[in-house]
């Protein structure tokens, strides 16, 4: 089911959280809302879920063409996974997952056996079989995350909303779960919108990335488009490391080529101020000569650095093959 967000505006007192936001989330897609904290991404997600109201008279939220702006959160058919999971800590895992079914009005509520069956299916789906009688505090962060997901899916939601789904996990688990979530999404094909401040996460996971900043959308596109063709300097700087040249042009560290100072095609010469080699990669910091300020960071291969026999203090040449000028 597609989500259509149409000119949504939201202010908290004098503070504008969302300024005329419009966005299309295609059916079955996995879309990331990416931005620094305070950019409004979580507020937008909560408005889509119905946990927060857009300012009166601003815009509409449509699910599959149907206006849900005035529909209560519980009736929108959204699965919401909170940043810290918000599991019911006094209930078992099975009770947590069954909650959405248990609170249904009597006429719609599945029979006990059906609920049990559904919980078992969901536990299987999130690969937590056998943990049904545990309580949330007995589970690891990654397991709790998947319980929260199973609980949200129990009510067969039409869209899935995730608030910083990996924010509270350590780096290793985060990477594993990220891959798992992508596979999982491809299996169940549920329209999914998630919030993150981690650009790597957004680029790796999403079909569509929406970069937000200061209550506005900076750019929307596929991960490739966002990374390769940033439209604003903010997007350039926010997605991956980048060198800003004094004349306002941007270049990514891996795009700069290292050459000997006297070689042909050298755009700038500079002195190596820092050299760091890790595995097959090398990071070289260069202070440009001739009055240019600031360091440039270059990512090169270890082979090249060793071939050139680079050392701190050497004067070397840099070549900038592509240069983009942005506002």
């Amino acid at each position: 089911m597609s989500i259509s967000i149409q000119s949504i505006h939201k202010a908290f007192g004098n503070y504008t959280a969302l300024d005329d936001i419009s966005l299309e989330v295609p059916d079955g897609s996995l879309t990331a809302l990416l931005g620094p904290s305070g950019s409004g991404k979580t507020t937008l997600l909560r408005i889509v879920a119905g946990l927060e109201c857009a300012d009166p008279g601003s815009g509409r939220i449509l699910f599959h063409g149907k206006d849900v702006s005035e529909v209560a959160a519980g009736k929108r058919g959204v699965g919401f996974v909170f940043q810290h999971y918000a599991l019911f800590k006094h209930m078992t895992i099975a009770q947590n997952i069954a909650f959405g079914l248990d609170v249904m009005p009597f006429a719609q509520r599945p029979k006990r056996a059906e609920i049990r069956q559904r919980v078992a299916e969901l536990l299987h789906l999130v690969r937590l079989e056998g943990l049904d009688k545990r309580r949330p505090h007995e589970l690891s962060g990654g397991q709790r995350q998947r319980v929260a997901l199973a609980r949200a899916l129990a009510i067969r939601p039409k869209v899935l909303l995730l608030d910083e789904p990996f924010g509270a996990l350590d780096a290793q688990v985060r990477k594993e779960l990220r891959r798992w979530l992508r596979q999982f999404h491809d299996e169940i094909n549920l329209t999914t919108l998630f919030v993150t401040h981690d650009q790597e996460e957004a680029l790796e996971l999403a079909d569509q990335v929406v970069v937000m900043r200061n209550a506005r959308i900076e750019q929307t596109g596929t991960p490739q488009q966002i990374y390769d063709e940033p439209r604003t300097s903010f997007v350039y700087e926010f997605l991956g490391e980048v060198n800003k040249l004094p004349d306002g042009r941007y270049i990514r560290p891996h795009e700069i080529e290292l050459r000997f100072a006297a070689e042909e095609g050298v755009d700038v010469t500079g002195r190596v101020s820092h050299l760091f080699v890790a595995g097959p990669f090398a990071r070289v910091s260069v202070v440009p000569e001739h009055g240019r300020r600031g360091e440039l960071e270059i990512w090169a291969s270890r082979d090249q650095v060793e071939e050139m026999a680079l050392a701190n203090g050497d004067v070397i040449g840099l070549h900038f093959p592509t240069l983009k000028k942005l506002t």
Partner: protein
Amino acid sequence: MPHRCPTTESAPARWLLIGLALLLLSLFLLLPLLAVFVEAFRRGAEVFFAALHTDAALSAVRLTLLAAAISVPLNTVFGLAAAWAVTKHRFRGRALLISLIDLPFAVSPVIAGLVWVLLFGAKGWCGPWLAAHDLKIIFDVPGIILATVFVTFPFVARELIPLMEAQGNDQELAAVTLGASGWQMFRRVTLPNIKWGLLYGVLLCNARAMGEFGAVSVVSGHIRGKTNTLPLHVEVLYNEYQFSAAFACATLLALLALVTLGLKSAVEQISHQGATRRT
């Protein structure tokens, strides 16, 4: 020289501090408690039970129980509602409401009693109207209940507000997105999370409701067998030099305090176990 961990005090300092604490504890807390029981039984168990078996004493116990039976449930509901409003919502005047909840703690109980006299007494604002309708509040049971309700107002709310503040409302919101109604959310999610705090607040509220003296004394009028609560009855007996009887009745209040303390620590222990299991 024996090994000593740098974070522990030296032995003499430790014993001095512990000794001082124990001395003060027994002087100010244990000794008075002991005195109550010793005085009560000074003239034998017979006198003790006879003192409890008078009409005046029984009526005082009844009135005390009645006041508690009305004010505790009332303030439990109020405390829940207030804590809910204050912690789960942000609205104009929220800070003012929190301060208002504390008002009964801030004012002297005597002033609290006087306020009711001023409002409902024979010469008070509503006095003539009440007299015209043949209603009596001051120097009667309703006044005592009003005063008790006022004084015990903040206990439950005060206990719940920090607890619910710390828990946030993520779990409630999760319940809402899963389709729970307001009542389902409260009963299945909120209440189980705050039950120990709530019980604790109710216990303290009850102890105060039964033990309140100042406010109740002002509105009661000390009509023996009619408007005397247990604490007031103790005072009356004492003023009449019936020391053994006074202390006999006082033992009931002391026992209430001991039972409350016991339950309180049991609640703390159980909820603490629950909390450590959860983290």
